[in-house]
């Protein structure tokens, strides 16, 4: 195609950067670097609404960094991100973020219900009174993840899986349209993993968008229907069946996958590049 012709095209377009669109999460050229060590290079992504989306890649591929950069929590060096068509600081309240469990001090003097109540902060503000209605909602969120019986327990005395559920309950209390979870299945028991997946699928059924950083290829297809494959760069993005192909996985993981792991994706995904 004629480069010059296209140039005219965007020369005519209005000055300034147009919105990336109303997608729940859209990134363009997103690059993150800690110091001069790149953690994410030029990632473009547009996540469709109402999907269960996995961000997949090997360790150190920038999965968590992608999530954090999307929310303005990581040192972005280039590129732009929008949530529902707006910069992050205009989208507070529409998304809920669940950080990695290991990122907080579980020795903190607080109880499960108290943590969940933190999810109501944007409604309550600085001085808004915490009423019976709020408590009921926090309890309902705990109930939904099967943790109502532990409402009064200090968080350090919960198991890893229970802690993760409490974090999920806090996000539920936020009643958001977009849920972003960083490794929600890391270090949790099988029962918790099932429970969390149930809750997330419930959210999707309500029309909300769920994004998870995920590292287990074996369950990716079962849990998710859309994926972003990362290894510093974007390798692929799209419906999970089209993306989890042998070629894409090889490009994502390099030599780090076994034959058996690859074989599991060979048949239904079709042979990739």
């Amino acid at each position, binding site marked *: 195609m004629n480069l010059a012709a296209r140039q005219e095209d965007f020369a005519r377009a209005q000055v300034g950067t147009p919105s990336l669109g109303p997608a729940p999460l859209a990134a363009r050229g997103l690059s993150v670097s800690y110091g001069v060590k790149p953690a994410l290079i030029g990632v473009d992504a547009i996540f469709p609404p109402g999907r269960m989306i996995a961000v997949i890649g090997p360790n150190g591929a920038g999965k968590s960094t992608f999530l*954090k950069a999307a*929310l*303005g*929590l990581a040192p972005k060096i280039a590129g732009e991100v929008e949530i529902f068509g707006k910069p992050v*600081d205009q989208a*507070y*309240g529409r*998304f*809920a*973020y*669940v*950080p990695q469990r290991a*990122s*907080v*001090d*579980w*020795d*903190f*003097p*607080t*109880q499960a219900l*108290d*943590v969940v109540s*933190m999810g109501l*902060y*944007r409604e*309550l503000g*600085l*001085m808004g009174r915490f009423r019976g209605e709020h408590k009921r909602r926090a309890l309902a969120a705990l109930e939904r993840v*099967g943790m109502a019986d532990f409402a009064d327990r*200090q968080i*350090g*005395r*919960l*198991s*890893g*899986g*229970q*802690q993760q559920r409490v974090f999920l309950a*806090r996000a539920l209390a936020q009643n958001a349209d977009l849920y972003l979870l960083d490794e929600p299945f890391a270090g949790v*028991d099988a*029962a*918790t993993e099932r429970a969390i997946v149930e809750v997330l699928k419930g959210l999707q059924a309500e029309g909300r968008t769920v994004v998870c950083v995920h590292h287990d290829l074996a369950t990716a297809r079962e849990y998710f229907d859309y994926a972003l494959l990362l290894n510093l760069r974007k390798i692929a993005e799209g419906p999970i069946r089209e993306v989890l192909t042998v070629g894409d996985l090889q490009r994502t993981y390099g030599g780090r996958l076994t034959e058996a792991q690859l074989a599991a994706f060979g048949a239904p995904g079709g042979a990739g590049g």
Partner: protein
Amino acid sequence: MMGEDFVRFSLAPLLIGALAAMACALPGNFLLLRRQAMIGDAISHVVLPGIVVAFLLTGSVSTWPMLLGALGAAAVSAVLIELVRRIGRVEPGAAMGVVFTTLFALGVLLLERASLGNVHLDVQHALYGNLESLIWLRSSGWASLTDPKALATLPEELPRMAAVAGLMGLLTLIFWRPLKISTFDEGFARSLGIPVRMVSFGLVLAAAAACVAAFDAVGSIIVIAMLVCPPATARLMTDRLATQVWLSLAFAVFAAVLGYVLAGYGPLWLGGEDSVSAAGMIATVSGLTLGIAALYGPHRRRDEAGEPQAL
């Protein structure tokens, strides 16, 4: 100990000591949970250059320039620590050490140059205050508490300390939620739009204000002790943040009162004649209280995460 003498000699110091202790303990709770307990130590060292600079600028040793100078120095040091941490990527402990020792050295140098005249800045006073001298000379027993004339002669440190303690209480109340959330989970707090850096700096600034007001009345030893010991003691007694804060206030008052009484009357009981430093004794008592809590406090140990639990 009761009656006229008590009101005249002990009431004001007791109240001032207790208020100073509470004003420091309140922000101390959050500093403790943020692993910034040593900020009080840093602040109390930079008070020295602050007051020397204030003296050099105004040429007077009156209270307000000194207070403002100290507060300014505390704010400057908080910014410098943050800069060294971020720009130099130095770990927090070393960053604090670098900043406060340097500023302290600067203070000593300036002090040496400044005392050329006949004004002498009293280092000893800055260090352990002079709680014992804050007496209510014009009082004549409990009745003076309802006598406006007598009340007007209360040491000016008392209303000032009360105001600062009240301000700390108010700030804690207003910013309770953002303080708690950003202390517990900074990433989550930022995702809510809480300006965590401002919260963090505001906390240090509030602690600095409490420190400076308190150091003027009672000396910097109490300040360092009260920022750390009562909150730490309270942390070992409970697993609830609100309870911890209330308990820390109680422990602060306890140390202030018991320390003052022991300093004033302890030596007499032991057959001595002179009292010892109240500030030092208050710090000692708060440390001993922490020691006891470390031995017997119901929540002294870190819980093993992942207690086996059937679901």
